[in-house]
């Protein structure tokens, strides 16, 4: 087990390096530079600024400096936001994104698997059809549609919840988080309920579940003690893609609800060629996704006795 985790972490290093290299050179292939977009600087000053950020050095040297900085945990200064390092920006933004993302994931897992189990246990009844219709509609209402609509309905028309933004004093409060979390969770709830239904249906048809029933166990106990553990396995391997989906969605909802998370920093950074911020966010997101995939694989191994780590 320990060697398995160690090996996975070792494999993660070259993968990360590929991501960093690809992002770095792609970003630099773009025409224009961070200082070409706003008001024109006098040439002498621009040269000074570029020298300060090492933008005047050859590309390969910049790349080397960036990677060696990264190893020491230094992601460099933001090229656009004065007096801020990329680490500052990520430390400020990540809690907001993580708060929304974690709640969405939790809600998606519990509500989604709950709905999936209900649908599976009452297969081909109105309850099943209701849940599955909800799932199809849920998959088809992406955050970029749901976000503005919820904000319009609950934020502006009804005035029950803030339409967006954060509290000026308290930051991200629960009432500010409800609509973004609902928006982000909905497609995942839908996908997970479909996964759970399919997996549960397969499990309750299996022989050992029939045996448990034949022994006289109640339907409830058969599900909770016998079927659930096996049915939950596909859900665990979906953790990685779910995390990726949430991060993609976070970019949208942070724009819709005006939240100061790192998804928004990424988009703003890409638009204004703030190379270091873009790199920083990609590194953090890629790292998180790899972490989620690793957790999923470890959990899978713990729950499924057929999987052996070698």
């Amino acid at each position, binding site marked *: 087990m320990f060697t398995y985790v160690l090996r996975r972490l070792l494999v993660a290093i070259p993968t990360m390096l590929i991501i960093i290299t690809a992002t770095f050179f792609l970003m630099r292939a*773009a025409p224009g530079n961070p200082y070409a977009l706003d008001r024109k600087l006098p040439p002498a000053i621009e040269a000074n600024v570029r020298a300060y950020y090492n933008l005047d050095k050859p590309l390969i040297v910049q790349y080397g400096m960036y990677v060696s900085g990264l190893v020491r945990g230094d992601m460099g200064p933001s090229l656009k936001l004065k007096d801020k390092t990329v680490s500052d920006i990520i430390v400020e933004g990540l809690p907001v994104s993580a708060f929304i993302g974690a709640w969405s994931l939790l809600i998606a897992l519990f509500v989604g698997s709950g709905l999936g189990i209900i649908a599976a246990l009452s297969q081909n009844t109105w309850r099943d059809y209701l849940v599955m219709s909800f799932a199809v509609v849920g998959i088809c209402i*992406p955050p970029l549609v749901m976000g503005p609509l919820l904000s319009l309905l609950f934020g502006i028309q009804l005035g029950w919840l803030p339409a967006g933004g954060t509290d000026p004093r308290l930051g991200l409060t629960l009432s500010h988080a409800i609509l973004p979390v609902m928006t982000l969770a909905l497609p995942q709830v839908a996908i997970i309920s479909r996964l759970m239904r399919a997996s549960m249906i397969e499990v309750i048809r299996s022989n050992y579940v029939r045996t448990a029933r034949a022994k006289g166990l109640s339907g409830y106990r058969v599900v909770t003690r016998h079927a659930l553990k096996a049915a939950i396995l596909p859900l665990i391997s979906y953790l990685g893609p779910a995390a990726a989906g949430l991060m993609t969605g976070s970019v949208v909802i942070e724009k819709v609800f005006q939240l100061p998370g790192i998804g928004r920093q990424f988009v703003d950074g*890409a638009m204004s060629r703030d190379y270091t911020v873009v790199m920083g966010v990609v590194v953090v997101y890629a790292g998180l996704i790899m972490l989620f995939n690793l957790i999923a694989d470890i959990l899978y191994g713990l729950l499924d006795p057929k999987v052996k780590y070698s």
Partner: protein
Amino acid sequence: MTTAADTNAPVSAPVKGRSLWADARRRLFSNTAAVVSMIILAILTLAAIFGPMVWVHDFEHQYRDRVLESPTLVHWHIMGTDNYGRDMFARVLFGLRVSLAVALVATLVSLVIGVVWGAVAGYRGGRTDQIMMRIVDIIYSLPFIFFVIILTVTIGAHLESPVQKVILLFAAIGAVEWLTMARIVRGQSISLKHKEFVEAARAAGAGSGAIIRRHIVPNLLGPVVVYVTLTIPAVILAEAFLSFLGMGISEPLTSLGQLISLGAGQMEIASWLLIYPALTMVVTLVCFNFIGDGLRDAIDPKDR
């Protein structure tokens, strides 16, 4: 996935010989949700193709005296007008046309890459297969949409015309969506090579041409067709996602994603600018998903 032919082979065995596709068609047309979706989608597609030609308003024409009118029958602004006095119904029709076009082309791109990649990996097997699928695994586990964003921002800035940017968009989205297709095709090719019914056909004296035509292609085609129907809505979403962030379709062209983005910015004063494009997109996506599900149940009846 692979059992379509197992279950169907005995059915098509009797002398009368109903083909696999006739069976699938019958099952598909008995699926109400799929049939209704096909009808709605046909109407939407026709509206997207011919609507902008026949509708009384042009999607770009600005009526300076009719800015931000709510939906009204006066002058036939049935979905209102936007902040430049442009007819929203015409814009939604045109946006739908662009979204569908992007979806079709990008899906085609992903189809070609995915089928070739998956088929080569599946048929060659061994080391080639391992390396090719390892690449797919690595890309799969990355926040790939972020690369699409970087790609559209960096290369997009080199391009002048909006048409070139649209082509870049096709390529960028198609390049992301091929991964699952490659996995599906690879899995199918590997399992089909060793299937009993293929061996049986060979033993019965069928040539490899007949085997490929009668057994391999239909079984490969089924999952691919299903997946294509499910890729189209995914691509529509990806395009909307990019356009929403201001990185996809840009003026003077428009798409549903861009309309939603513009509408979301003005929803407090003019909710119809958001609601109609959003509704159109959701209906389109729901239709594609129901058709995709219906096709899957029809072609691969295992999961019913």
